[in-house]
């Protein structure tokens, strides 16, 4: 069973009006459990739109989007996925622990269960001692880790990430990539990840989808098989070959 099944999905914003935008051409995509799929492409290629179709935050104009073998909208209502955004988007008025508890609250978990889960999640993202801190006391990288903990707190099968590391500096970013891979492995979640960064896409993914703009389409697919990532992976010639492959594909769509 696929985690994501998209068949012939298109998206047109403001159809029939003067400012009509054809955001996505017919998209077909299947993502299997445990995959780490990255969407990469120039600005305005519809990668964020595609992510929001999967999240059922917007509806496709035509075609169908299925998550966990049911309509995406139903999957949203069933809370089948967790989502992380470019900004951590933590609520300033809640402590770190309470931020992670937010989705659990909405699902009606008891207070004790919420506490316990928040503690586990904080340990997973290595922020155990910061439970009672407020987000404003944490650095950008730490905030993003809390956001990931929040997205995974209710153990969704699917994690959707919209340029989550885009606002971080290079050092923190590489560190967060390692953290994310560790969490991905530990939780066996399926990830769909949107990014602008070619090395990031190659380092993280099992599959890189290169998208072309106007209207957004999946132009080419680069399978990445670099085995377990380690510090030396970024210097590995095989890594650079893949980076070049994605870069060439991107250059082609930008022409």
């Amino acid at each position, binding site marked *: 069973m696929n985690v994501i099944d998209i068949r012939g999905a298109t998206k047109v914003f403001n159809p029939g009006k003067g400012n009509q935008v054809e955001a996505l051409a017919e998209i077909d995509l299947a993502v299997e459990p445990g995959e780490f799929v990255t969407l990469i492409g120039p600005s305005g290629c519809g990668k964020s739109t595609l992510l929001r179709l999967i999240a059922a935050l917007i509806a496709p104009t035509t075609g169908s989007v299925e998550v966990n073998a049911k309509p995406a909208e139903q999957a949203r209502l069933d809370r089948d996925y967790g989502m992380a955004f470019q900004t951590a988007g933590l609520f300033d008025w809640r402590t770190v622990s309470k931020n992670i508890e937010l989705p659990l609250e909405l699902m009606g978990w008891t207070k004790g269960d919420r506490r316990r889960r928040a503690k586990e999640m904080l340990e997973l993202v290595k922020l155990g001692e910061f439970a009672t801190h407020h987000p404003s006391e944490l*650095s950008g990288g730490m905030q993003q880790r809390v956001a990931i903990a929040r997205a995974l707190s209710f153990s969704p099968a699917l994690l959707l990430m919209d340029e989550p590391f885009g606002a971080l500096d290079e050092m923190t970013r590489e560190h967060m990539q390692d953290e994310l891979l560790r969490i991905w492995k530990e939780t066996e979640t399926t990830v769909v990840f949107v990014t602008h960064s070619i090395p990031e896409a190659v380092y993280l993914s099992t599959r890189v989808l290169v998208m072309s703009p106007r209207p957004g389409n999946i132009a080419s697919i680069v399978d990445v098989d670099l085995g377990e990532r380690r510090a030396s992976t970024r210097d590995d010639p095989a890594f650079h070959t893949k980076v070049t492959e994605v870069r060439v594909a991107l250059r082609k769509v930008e022409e």
Partner: protein
Amino acid sequence: MPATDTMAEMEDPLVREHRLRQQAAHEARRDVTVRIIRQTVTFVVFMGLLAALYAGYKEVGQAIDDRQHDWPVVGSVLPRTDDLTMPPIGKIIGQFGETPGGQDQIYVLILLDEALFTLREAFAGFMVGLVIGMAIALALAQWRRLEQGLLPFVIASQTIPLIAIAPIIVIWGRKNFDVFPWEWQDWMSVSIIATYLTFFPVAVNGLRGLQSPRPENQELMESYAANWSQTLWRLRLPASLPYLFAALKIAATASIVGAIVGEISSGVVGGLGRRILREAFNYTTGPDRLFASVLGAAALGIFVYLVVTGLERLVVGRQNKGATA
């Protein structure tokens, strides 16, 4: 596993940055005490300066007046300085401790009593204004089209002079408001005037606050399939609080002004407004009493402002201690 080693090494910049932030937050917290002391001192010094300016002008004016009878600058171009126009500060302050004729309490206690009466009117009006203002803000936030239709009327409502509507409200209160299950009293009419001044800043800032969450935060709640009220209570209302408190500070002092003006123009007895009106009538026999009663009204305004500021620190300050403390 080599990857873990690297991870531990790379933890460092994050932890270091965090330590620096903690230090800054700690300093910010310590600064609060310093700031309160500094503000108090500034306030006292400022009041002292104002008093000195008043007394100094009176002194200089008196001196010029005594010499220059042919060319009276003071009194024609500049305000007169005699004791009837500018009672000496000592006498104004001293008035608080005096017992006016026909009374068995010292003046400051009488003022306190009347201030409580006015405060009750203002508070009742303030609370109703808060509820109405937030209701309008919620409605405007919910139905965007309403914003264009309703907002001009909300703004126009504030251009009607207060003194004009106060008597109307009192008359309505006596004649028409018997629909309420309780007996309508005149002070409630004054509260309506306070409401009238309160709801506006609450509605305007409340709307801005409710609309303040970033689109991602809204999408986050949608991704959790949160319903309208869950989104309201967990995201939009808490996010609106800093905006709301900015409005409440204005509204609190405005409600006092509204109550005092309302008392004066409606003839409701028992509060500071009525007191100021009476002292103005009896000005020639006791000018210091008028000044003292006005000082009392100012003190009441400052008091409610401080109460709201304290509440704000309690509610909002706790949210992001460290950042704003």
